[in-house]
């Protein structure tokens, strides 16, 4: 039997604003064996007080009612003791100043948070980590370009073995096929010899690195720590090629009717003829612990007929990539052998549309244009002329030095401008018309050659590359949000992909210079090492690295509806023939999206499940007959929306005392049953505050808030059928810097609900 100790922090104004004695009595009534207060709870003396109770009184469940749970006090971590933190400071006192000494509402708010935390603490169990025994310490690196080679070398330095699998017959990729490269360190004004050959030599001399050239990854199965990689010769078919699930469209017949499960299965089998089932184990597969995906990019080559106004198709109009090939062979010459002494570099193909670049253009295309312009000047120092016509010149960081050094060259001519026409000038060259230039007005320039600053297409745009043997298919999901770049939420989590244990580096993730690729390979290598450790000790990876828990399934009640397997943002769930989910804790990020998806409510965590949150809701006191005291529940995503509330409170913003806030791991984890619980316990409204979704999504679990949005549409339908206004349940998107708006969002919702009056089911 758990023994609960509840400790109330009375500093920071809490003691003055609230009736602490009443809270103490309440906590005791709710079942806390020990209730104590301290005006400096987070000081050594306060910590010692709690510690004494743990050690001498046998307290094994602790509630700290005081500062926001977001403030981390590691001193309160006692082995085997569950710590629950509830915020009296930010969510109650700071955000709800006393209304002329009338503290009734604020006191009730504090009391409810005590009740809710007591309801939770009585139901939590200590997590038991799922540890993997002797996980593989070897890292698979897909792609042998600069990023891949850098990752391999860094891993070797750190003592880890790796295997580089490279499709081509040589390592080095594009970086090995260039004449010169932009500098990777000071001085930033001169081009240097390619560094790729040096890296290749280091790789070949390193006993910790295995290289497989001319090889592809047919499939990769299982989990971090124990990936099974099936290799094949590049470009051939293999029985171990990863099977591809039916697309949503393929699940329907020609008349738009959904195919039966049996027909779908047939169609799926036909589609994957000759391929082993995704759950089949390849006994010849090699075992790896983690993967660095450094499969790079492909040059964009415009199709025939594209960019007609830039004379694409004329033999003297080439892409930057083709120009590099020419430069690699020797002096810059044209297809007809004539020396190209004047070359125009066209950065933006949009003519007068000034916010228009070639697809996949980036800082790298700007820097490459500068480098290529320098080739011309180096080949023809006396009379070589390089023109760069740009709408955007992107030379981030120290590349600005390179840019400046080129500007100083007498033969470099740079101007912003709209290239409206390139045509044969009738004298064996090309005439380039540029409008709205810095020189004032329009100009024409005669040149020998035109180079288009085309972009770098990430390999994951058109191919799966990684070829997972996963229930959700071989490729990363939703990469269209990143134009095909292999990324998840790059602002917050560089290198992370939508598959735990696989870390993207280099051009596949973002267009990068060679210098950036080296750093990126290093970063991804470190992430790979982290995951190896994580699976060994059984904690989650970013963003819940402290979490040793994992979702538990009560399979007896599973109806094989497949919602969890389909909706898991990380593809953590596989399934069997019947469709019963097969959890893979090592792939799981503990966001709880499966829990939110499950209509049978059979998925949960030890300290975060349907029952715990449901009990918290039911323990909120709802006055039956007081129209002044309507009650709402606000489910707040703890990643961005909750911090926004904390910041708002610390900045003195206040909001209505009527709603009760329940932090959730992700809105994706909010199960519809909680909303039903809230409405049936007489709450007057439910608000969900989560991350922005859509193109620029900020959800830490990629899809959680978006899924919640879809689920709320269904909730609205069922509310309507009950005769309850659907506006009583609402989802709002909040980003972490919306702290100045979040209190207004809450107040607006409260006002709307108050306007609707009490929940018609109140009291039933």
């Amino acid at each position: 039997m758990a023994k609960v100790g509840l400790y109330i922090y009375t500093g920071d104004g809490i003691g003055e604003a609230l009736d602490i004695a009443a809270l103490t009595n309440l906590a005791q009534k709710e079942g806390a064996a020990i209730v104590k207060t301290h005006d400096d709870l987070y000081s050594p003396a306060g910590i010692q007080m709690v510690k004494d109770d743990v050690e001498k009184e046998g307290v094994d469940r602790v509630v700290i009612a005081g500062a926001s749970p977001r403030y981390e006090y590691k001193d309160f971590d006692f082995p085997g003791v569950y710590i629950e933190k509830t915020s009296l400071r930010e969510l109650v006192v700071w955000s709800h100043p006393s209304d002329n000494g009338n503290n009734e509402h604020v006191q009730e708010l504090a009391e409810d948070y005590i009740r809710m935390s007591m309801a939770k603490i009585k139901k939590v169990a200590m997590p038991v980590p799922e540890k993997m025994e002797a996980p593989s310490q070897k890292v698979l690196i897909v792609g042998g370009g600069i990023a891949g080679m850098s990752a391999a070398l860094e891993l070797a330095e750190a003592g880890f073995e790796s295997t580089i699998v490279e499709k081509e017959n040589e390592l080095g990729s594009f970086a090995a096929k260039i004449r010169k490269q932009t500098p990777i360190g000071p001085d930033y004004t001169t081009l240097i010899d390619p560094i790729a050959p040096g890296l290749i030599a280091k790789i070949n001399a390193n006993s910790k690195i295995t290289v497989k050239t001319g090889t592809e990854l047919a499939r990769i199965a299982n989990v971090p720590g124990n990936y099974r990689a099936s290799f094949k010769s590049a470009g051939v078919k293999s029985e171990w090629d990863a099977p591809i699930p039916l697309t949503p469209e393929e699940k329907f017949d020609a008349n738009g009717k959904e195919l039966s499960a049996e027909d779908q299965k047939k169609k799926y089998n036909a589609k994957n003829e000759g391929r082993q089932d995704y759950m089949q184990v390849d006994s010849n597969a090699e075992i790896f612990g983690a993967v660095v995906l450094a499969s790079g990019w492909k040059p964009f080559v415009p199709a025939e007929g594209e960019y007609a106004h830039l004379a694409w198709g004329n033999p003297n109009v080439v892409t930057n990539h083709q120009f590099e090939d020419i430069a690699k062979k020797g002096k810059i010459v044209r297809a007809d052998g004539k020396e190209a002494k004047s070359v125009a570099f066209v950065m933006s193909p949009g003519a007068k549309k000034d916010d228009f670049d070639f697809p996949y253009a980036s800082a790298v295309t700007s820097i490459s244009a500068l480098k290529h312009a320098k080739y011309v000047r180096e080949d023809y120092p006396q009379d070589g002329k390089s023109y760069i016509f740009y709408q955007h010149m992107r030379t981030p960081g120290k590349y600005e030095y390179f840019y400046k050094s080129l500007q100083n060259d007498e033969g470099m001519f740079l101007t912003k401008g709209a290239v409206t026409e390139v045509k044969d000038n009738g004298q064996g060259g090309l005439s380039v018309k540029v409008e709205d230039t810095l020189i004032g007005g329009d100009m024409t320039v005669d040149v020998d050659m035109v180079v288009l600053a085309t972009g770098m297409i990430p390999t994951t745009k058109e191919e799966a590359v990684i070829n997972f043997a996963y229930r959700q298919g071989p490729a990363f999901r939703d990469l269209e949000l990143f134009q095909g770049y292999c990324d998840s939420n790059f602002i917050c989590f560089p290198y992370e992909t939508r598959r735990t244990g696989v870390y993207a580096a280099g051009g596949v993730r973002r267009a990068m210079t060679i210098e950036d690729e080296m750093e990126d390979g290093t970063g991804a290598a470190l992430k790979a090492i982290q995951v190896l450790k994580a699976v060994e000790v059984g904690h989650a990876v970013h963003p819940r690295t402290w979490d040793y828990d994992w979702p538990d399934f009560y399979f007896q009640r599973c109806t094989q509806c497949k919602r969890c397997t389909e909706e898991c943002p990380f593809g953590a769930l596989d399934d069997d023939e019947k469709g019963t989910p097969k959890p893979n804790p090592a792939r799981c990020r503990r966001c709880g999206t499966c829990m939110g998806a499950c209509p049978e409510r059979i998925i949960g965590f030890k300290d975060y499940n349907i029952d715990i949150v449901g009990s918290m809701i039911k323990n909120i006191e709802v006055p039956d007959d007081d129209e002044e005291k309507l009650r709402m529940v606000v489910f707040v995503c703890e990643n961005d929306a909750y911090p926004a509330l904390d910041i708002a409170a610390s900045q003195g913003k206040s909001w209505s005392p009527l709603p009760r806030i329940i932090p959730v791991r992700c809105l994706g984890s909010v199960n519809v049953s909680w909303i039903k619980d809230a409405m049936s316990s007489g709450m007057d409204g439910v608000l969900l505050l989560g991350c922005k979704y859509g193109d620029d999504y900020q959800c830490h679990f990629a899809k959680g808030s978006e899924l919640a949005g879809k689920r709320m549409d269904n909730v609205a339908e069922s509310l309507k059928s009950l005769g309850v206004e659907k506006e009583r349940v609402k989802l709002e998107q909040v980003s972490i810097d919306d702290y100045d708006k979040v209190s207004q969002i809450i107040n607006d919702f409260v006002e709307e609900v108050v306007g609707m009056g009490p929940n018609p089911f109140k009291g039933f």
Partner: protein
Amino acid sequence: MQTQSIQPDLSFIRNVMQSGGDTVKRCYQCATCSVVCPLSTDESPFPRKEMLWTQWGLAGKVAGDVDVWLCHQCGDCTTYCPRDARPGDVLSAIRLNAIRYYAEPKFLADMFSSPMGVIGAVFLGIILVLAVAGVWAALVSHHAFPFPEETPIEFHNFMSVIPIDVLFLSTVVFVLYVLYNGVKNFWMDISAGANLPKSYSGTYPVPPIGTLVTGYIIPAVQEIIAHSRFKKCGQTADRATGHLYLVLSFIILFIVTNFVFIAEDLFHAALHIIGPVTPMPQWHPVKLAANIGGIMLIVGVFMIKGVRDRLTEKGTLKSSDQDWILIWLIFAVGATGLGSEIFRLTQVKQLAYPVYILHLACVWVLFLSLPFSKFGHLVYRSTAYVFEKWAADVKSGKAGFGLEKSVGSEH
């Protein structure tokens, strides 16, 4: 705006960069320079456009730009330039290139733009003076050469004014010819650059000589003597005083020289109408003026040098070889002039004649270099002053195509 066909002239860019404008390519067109420039006008702001044209090697555009010459290298632009593109220095370099552009033959321009070339020219001058004097002594005067035996020292005994005139008048003719061509081409270029209206036959209006002098040259000269623009310079206003000393001394010496030329060379030596005028007694007003002019020249040079040293050190402006060549050449002229006078009066024969020879050589080089060196700014900047007034009147319909006759009296 009309589409212009751009053909960058790399050699023009290179020349500007090599003659002190090496920073021109740094300019990123923020226009701070034109805003802070105390001399720039709203109608035609500079030096931003000149920076851009030079970056793009548009030599023709720069050649047609009178504003280049209305710049006095105050250095305010250079001081405030966020990119350290030093527009003041670049325009100075552009001017040097313009002088070279309008000067023929080019080898003289090359010679006068290098210190060794100038030193060589002075040696050439010495040889020339000795040759002419030697021939004169042997064939006409029969004085001992190179040190005449007569005392007191009279430079006539070394070489009379006639052979000097042979040497110098031929040089004057040559210099005037080169300058005439240069200024004529310059005038045409800036007329085109200023978009002056053309006549039906396609020529640019040219002021009649009388109007030119009374309506434009005299006001321009008045403005130059007043140094009113120079004094507006923010960073380098104190350069104006030294420069004014030099300008005044040149004017005084010009008048003195012409007085002597007419009285001595023409009326006495050539026509024998009057007796010898030189050497003049020290109390003679012309002699007094000459001595004052000589002293002002040297003082002015040192003032200018002092300011330039300070500003160069501070980074407000850069000083090219040409800047120093002109300063030291003028100093050499003044120093040797006064030196030969002092040694003559003190009867130090072994020094008086050599210093006099050196003086003649330096004067000759300074003279000859006028159309080819930085000294040419005397002509081109003055022309620019004149043109600016003329162009303003033409554009406002007060001059050109005979219009000035009706309104010319306003000047």
